[in-house]
Structures are given as structure tokens and as C-alpha cells.
């Protein structure tokens, strides 16, 4: 009796400990989200954070398709864009308080997801990908044709301060907008996380893993995909509404293939196999975008290279890269990796920076005004039309990459060492 009670008590403690472990990241995230404007006060940082939060919601919704449902979509921007366009029009015409606008955005995203999902989710794989591409093109074409709704090339504008105040807040300042976006980002992320824990979310995983088996267990693969698709459309619509609130303008760019491709890139960069992956991807991508685009005109090239490198070397994304270190961390052997990693980072850094300089010089030669030979890189001014900068940066890049190749076996050895358990544990199982 006593024993039974003890185990029951222990079970309860374990259960609540488990609950805590699940809840803790969310509480930390909420506190962090709310504290951000006190840490970073400049309005440009808040602008970046707003953009980041919108991208997080969009990427998480995309991962409902790609990561959890196994659907590769090339047209997810359609649902964000349409949600956004409807919200801009609502902002212009109806007195809906801004904090409720994302609900409407979600509704419109959902509506279009139901219509398009009804035929596009019949098959997964290539068929689904092709249909999403086609629908993406179709909607992008419509956005140019139906000027009354999409506003043609200028897009549609609205003024968020014209809608009725919400408890005295008129969302004129960036910080007020930040809090609106932050709260919605938190709610949307939490809802998307909880979705993965529901029967619908679990079966979406099952259909992704093995659609045929799921079908023979009583699940219609098509219906399961449609549910995920609609949920993803709903949250993309919310992201669109947040975009509308933040930028007060939507253009054809918000629904075109480039935006759809970018969100695939963001999600993949972060890691599709993890819930937090798209969040990390969105943060890193937005930072890269806003920092790099200020520094260089060819930032998209660097992002492209980063994406290629991710696909080729870290197919599980940045989160996967972190997760790979779990074993070493559990064994307490992460220290083994520090020195080899630092060496690798140094060599890689030299190679990457030098290669980037090389590309920048090339770009300068091609695109600078005629006769403008003076170029500034990292505080150094030099003539981009002489041979030395080319030789120097090219040579440094080659040396850097050669060093990377040289160091690879050392990192590999350290990796193996870090992942070998220290001792055979009790019970004889390694």
C-alpha cells in the first residue's frame, strides 16, 4: 500500500517534471519576447525584430507542410500574401481593432487553403510540389491582372493609425506594433506546437513517413494532408496579417515564387526535422538579410551559397547541427571539440571572408561607375583595377579552404572521440 502510494507520488513528480521541461522554453520565450524592446531600444532593431517575428510565424506554418506533413510546397507565399492583402483592405474599410486583424488574416488564409488544398493534397511528392508551383504562378499572375484588389505594381496601402484605437493604443509607434506582433507570434507558435501533439498532428507525421501504411490503418492520406494544409494556410494568413500591420503595404512581391522559395530556404536552413528549426532559420535569415543587405549588394549570393552548403553538408539544418552534439554533451565530452572547432572556424573564416572579398572586387569592377577605381573593403581603400587585390584575396581564399581540407580529419577524429561513451555503463549495455 505504502509502496503503491510512493510510486504513484513519484510518477506524479516525474509527470510534472516532464510538464515543466515542456513549458519552460515557452515561458523563457515569452519573457524574452516581452523584454526585447527594453534590451534593444533603437527603432531599426525593433523593425528587424518585427520582421523576424513575422518570418517565424510564416516559417513555422511552412514547416507544418514540409517537416510535419511531408509536403514540399513552392507556393506557400500565396496564403500569407492573400491573408495580407485582405487585411490591408480590411484596415482601409472596416473599423476592426488591429489586435484582432490577424484572426481575419488567418481566416482568409484558411479559406484559400481549403479551396486549393481540396485538389492539391490528393497526392504528396512531386505532384503536390508541381501543383503548388502552378497555383503560385497563377496567383502571382492574378495579382498583376486584378488591379482593383492587388493594386497592380504599387500594391495596396493602408494606414494602421486610422483604425479605431484599442484601449487607447493607436499603434503609431514601432514598439506598440512590436508587442502586437510578439503576442501573436507567441500565440501562433504555441498553437502550432500544440497541433503537433494532437491526433491530427501525429497522423500527419505517420502519413509523411508512410502514407500507404496509414491508409491501411484507417486514415485517408488525402484528408490528413488537407488538414495540415489548411492549418498551415491559416497560420500563413496570420503571418500575412502581421505583415500588413507592420508594413501597411502589400505588393505582388508578397505572393510571388521568390517569397515562396525564400521561406523554403529559411525553413530548411533552420532544420525541418525540429519544431524549433524554422524559428532558428527565421532569426538567422532575417539577421543575415538585414545585416548583409546593408553591407553588400550581392547578399543574395551569399545566402544562396549558405543554403547550398546547408543542403550539402548539414541536411538537418542549423538545429540538426546543434542536435548532433547531444551525445557528446550527455557524455560531457563537448570540450574535446572546442580546439578543433576553433581551428576549423579560423581556417573557414579566412577562406570565406577572402572569397567574399574576391567576389566584392569582381562586383565592383563590373558595376562601379566608369572611372571609379577606388574601393573600400574592411576599412582599406585600394584600386580594384590592379592585380594585387585579386591575387591577395584569391590566394587567401585558396589557403583558407586548403586548411579546411587539411583540418577535416582532425575534426572528424575529435568528433568520433567525443561521441564514444566514456565507459560501459551498468547493466552491460553500452
Amino acid at each position, binding site marked *: 500500500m505504502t509502496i503503491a502510494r510512493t510510486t504513484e507520488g513519484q510518477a506524479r513528480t516525474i509527470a510534472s517534471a516532464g510538464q515543466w521541461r515542456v513549458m519552460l522554453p515557452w515561458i523563457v520565450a515569452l519573457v524574452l519576447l516581452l523584454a526585447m524592446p527594453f534590451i534593444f531600444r533603437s527603432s531599426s532593431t525593433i523593425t528587424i525584430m518585427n520582421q523576424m517575428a513575422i518570418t517565424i510565424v510564416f516559417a513555422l506554418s511552412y514547416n507544418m507542410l514540409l517537416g510535419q506533413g511531408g509536403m514540399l510546397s513552392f507556393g506557400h507565399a500565396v496564403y500569407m500574401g492573400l491573408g495580407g492583402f485582405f487585411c490591408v483592405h480590411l484596415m482601409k474599410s472596416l473599423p476592426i481593432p488591429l489586435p484582432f486583424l490577424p484572426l481575419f488574416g488567418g481566416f482568409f488564409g484558411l479559406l484559400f487553403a481549403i479551396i486549393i488544398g481540396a485538389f492539391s493534397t490528393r497526392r504528396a511528392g512531386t505532384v503536390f510540389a508541381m501543383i503548388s508551383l502552378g497555383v503560385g504562378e497563377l496567383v502571382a499572375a492574378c495579382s498583376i491582372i486584378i488591379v482593383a484588389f492587388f493594386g497592380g505594381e504599387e500594391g495596396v496601402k493602408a494606414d494602421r493609425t486610422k483604425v479605431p484605437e484599442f484601449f487607447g493604443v493607436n499603434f503609431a509607434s514601432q514598439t506598440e506594433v512590436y508587442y502586437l506582433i510578439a503576442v501573436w507570434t507567441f500565440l501562433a507558435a504555441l498553437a502550432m506546437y*500544440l*497541433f503537433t*501533439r*494532437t*491526433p*491530427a*498532428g*501525429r*497522423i500527419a*507525421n*505517420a502519413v509523411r*513517413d*508512410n502514407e*500507404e*501504411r*496509414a*491508409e*491501411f*490503418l*484507417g*486514415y*485517408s492520406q488525402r*484528408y*490528413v494532408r488537407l*488538414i495540415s494544409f489548411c*492549418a498551415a494556410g491559416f497560420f500563413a494568413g496570420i503571418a500575412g496579417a502581421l505583415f500588413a500591420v507592420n508594413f501597411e503595404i502589400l505588393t505582388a512581391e508578397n505572393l510571388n515564387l521568390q517569397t515562396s522559395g525564400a521561406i523554403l530556404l529559411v525553413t530548411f536552413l533552420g532544420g525541418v526535422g525540429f519544431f524549433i528549426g524554422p524559428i532558428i532559420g527565421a532569426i538567422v535569415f532575417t539577421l543575415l538579410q538585414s545585416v548583409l543587405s546593408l553591407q553588400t549588394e550581392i547578399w543574395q549570393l551569399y545566402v544562396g551559397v549558405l543554403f547550398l552548403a546547408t543542403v550539402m553538408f548539414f541536411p538537418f539544418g542549423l538545429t540538426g547541427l546543434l542536435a548532433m552534439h547531444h551525445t557528446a554533451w550527455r557524455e560531457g565530452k563537448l570540450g574535446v571539440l572546442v580546439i578543433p572547432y576553433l581551428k576549423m572556424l579560423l581556417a573557414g573564416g579566412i577562406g570565406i571572408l577572402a572569397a567574399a572579398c574576391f567576389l566584392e572586387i569582381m562586383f565592383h569592377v563590373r558595376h562601379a561607375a566608369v572611372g571609379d577605381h577606388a574601393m573600400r573593403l574592411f576599412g582599406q581603400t585600394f584600386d580594384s583595377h590592379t592585380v594585387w587585390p585579386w591575387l591577395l584575396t584569391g590566394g587567401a581564399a585558396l589557403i583558407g579552404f586548403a586548411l579546411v581540407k587539411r583540418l577535416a580529419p582532425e575534426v572528424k577524429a575529435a568528433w568520433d572521440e567525443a561521441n564514444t561513451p566514456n565507459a560501459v555503463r551498468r547493466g552491460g549495455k553500452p
Partner: protein
Amino acid sequence: MSVPAIALTDVHKSFGKAQIIRGVDLSIAPRERHAIIGPNGAGKSTLFNLITGRFAPTSGTIKLHGEEIQGRPPYEINRRGLSRSFQITNIFPKMSVFENVRCALLWPMGYRYSFWHMVSGQSELNEAADGILERINLSARRDLPAGVLSYAEQRALEIGITIAGGANVIMLDEPTAGMSHSEADYMVDLIRQVTEGKTLIMVEHDMGVVFNLADRISVLVYGEIIASDRPDAVRANPKVQEAYLGAALEAAH
């Protein structure tokens, strides 16, 4: 006489010009353990696929507990109480063993595609899944990804997710294929135990397993059933011996 669990009437199936199933009539009583045997290419797997809804028959009717099911999608047939396993292991490799079984339980336990229940909070569901794991002796592997299990364990898991939903007609496609003798013996015991009181239909090549488990045997040759009878009668049937069994039977003795 009660309504048969499965009744096939004059079922044909052609792929293009190739006639694979050429007029099969078969009736399997509730709670019977029925084996379908036959040489390679006889159409056993096709017959399985017709009954379970993977393919629609070209003509003929298939009834499950008296209701016509031919041409219906697999998930509808499954919901009417028929569950199958596959010749090639067919599980959810990236999900945990527990998750595999739990997924198989969601529909039959009424959760369907709900997005307002949290699976972790459904103690009835989780206990049922753990119960299935215990029955197939995989409790110790509960949290491993199903893809890393040994072959025999994956086969056991396959049986587990097949029976999890409580279907009363269980169809197993070569459940002991590729197993060692001891693994096959274990599998036969497991099958016997988990299909207690249910209708079992299986395709099997191992004659030891067939004669050990089956109440009745049907012999399928070139898309036709040439005999359907009790094991000893099938064994004695000259047509069967001529077509197929002779060599295999001698090998089994």
C-alpha cells in the same frame, strides 16, 4: 449458417491483358484461420490487395461481413474491421515504436483527426498502446525509432499495429518471410495469441507455419483456387500435389 467474414464471388483482376485473378470464389467463416498458398506468381498478393482495397477488382464481388467492399479505398475497408500486414515490412520508421502503435489506435479509439485533444493527456489511449507493446513484447523498445529495430522486431511491430485497432479480420502477408526457425516459431505463437477469436487470413510460404496455424487452406494456382479445404484434405488432394504441394510437402517432412 452465419454470414461469412469474407466472401468472394467470381472475382477477376486483369492488368492490361494479363489476367492475374481468374474467377475466384472463396468464403471464410468468422473466427476461422485460413491460409492461402500457391506457387510464386499465382496471384496471392494480388488477391490480398483486392480484398484490402489496394486494387479494385475488374469484376466480381467481395463482401466483408455481408457488405460489399470491392473498389472501396483501403481506409474505409479498415474502418469496417479489416486490417492487414505487408510482405515487406511496412511501418513508420522515423516514429518511435510506441508512436507507431498509438497512431494505429487513434481512429479506432474515436480520436480520428481531432485537433482539440492532446495525445499525451489521453491516459486511456496511452495505456492501450502500452498494452499492445506488452502483447508483442516490445515494451523495452518503446521509445526507439521503429526503423532501428531488428528485422524480427519490426515484423512483430507490424503485427502489433495491424491488430492494434481491434479489427476482427486480420490479414497477414507472409508474416514469417525471411525469419530464422526460432524467430518463425516465436512469430507463430504471437500470431496465434493475438488473433484469438478473430478471423485470420494469411499468405505463407513456410508449410510448417501453414499446417501449424491454419484451420483451412486454399490453394491458388494461376489465379484460380484449385482446392479449399481442411489441411489434411488439402494435403491428400491429388490436384494440389500435382500442381504445387508435392515437392514442398516432402521438403517439410
